[in-house]
């Protein structure tokens, strides 16, 4: 499975639709303090099903919707899409027993100001449970050892026994 594209619109400081294309190897994001780099990491965690506003550095989930600037009004919705090349069959999505066809898989999450939230796999509405199950046991889940947030690299050493244990279990 390969990550092909990440699309943000109205998510945190990304007011306008913004696309990042990924190739093999390393993609590096650079820029001055406060320009929005760590918001990209939050977007990936969010679209994969993150439920805690605190772990996205906010106090409520509404904090992920673009809330305006000196020149812009707040957005009405936040939307993030991840697109994968799944020709290897690594991901096995299922919505109500149906398997979407094709080798490309996209996962979308939306949140509206009225608190309504949508999940979609290949543009087909689904539930959080479907998204979660698709990523289960891939190392990309929520206890992921594969996403290290800013300032948290040494936290793994200082983690409690249980947290450490959760990460080892995920890898087994």
């Amino acid at each position: 499975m390969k990550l092909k594209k990440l699309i943000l619109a109205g998510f945190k400081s990304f007011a306008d639709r913004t696309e990042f294309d990924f190739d093999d190897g390393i993609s590096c994001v650079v820029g001055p303090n406060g320009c929005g780099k760590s918001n990209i990491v939050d977007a990936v965690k969010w679209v994969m099903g993150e439920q805690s506003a605190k772990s996205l550095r906010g106090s409520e989930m509404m904090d992920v919707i673009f809330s305006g600037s000196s020149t812009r009004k707040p957005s009405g919705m936040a939307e993030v899409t991840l697109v994968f090349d799944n020709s290897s069959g690594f991901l096995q999505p299922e919505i109500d027993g149906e398997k979407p066809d094709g080798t490309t898989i996209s996962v979308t999450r939306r949140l509206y100001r009225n608190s309504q939230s949508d999940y979609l796999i290949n543009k087909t509405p689904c539930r959080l449970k479907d998204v979660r199950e698709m990523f289960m046991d891939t190392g990309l889940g929520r206890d992921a050892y594969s996403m290290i947030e800013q300032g948290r690299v040494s936290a793994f050493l200082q983690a409690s026994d249980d947290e450490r244990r959760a990460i080892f279990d995920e890898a087994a």
Partner: protein
Amino acid sequence: SRELFLASFEKIRKNFQELFRKLFGGGKADIFLTDPQDVLSSGIEIYARPPGKELRSLTLLSGGEKTMTALAMLFSIFKSRPSPFCLLDEVDAALDENNNERFNRLLAEFVPTSQFLIISHAKRTMSMANVLYGVTMQEPGVSKRISVRFEDAGKKLDEQLEPVG
């Protein structure tokens, strides 16, 4: 599931012993189950001894040594069970030039099996990238993506990305 966990634990342990030595250029590291009788819920203890030093508790390690030990652990788990992609947000902030280079060399070993999305201010790490994305707030408060060529990076990078005014 007990066998499954033990097999994975042993693999991670072997990787950790090897990758720690690689990152530190010597020394010794290990992981133990705090309660081997109860494999399925035992805690995990980490030992790390940088080269030339005595074994001390993890809390006495320096900021940079803690980062390097954590990276050795991260990549050890990664090696035992590679995940398709990995996100690292300024993990190199506490590292000096020397350790930054050792980290980059280790990272390069994992590039064939996984994609990496890396956020960093370190020029050395930026130079590892196949693709470099700049993010800027030319319009205050609104993030936009701009393309950056590496040879422009460094001093010019800050100029390209600085908010106007």
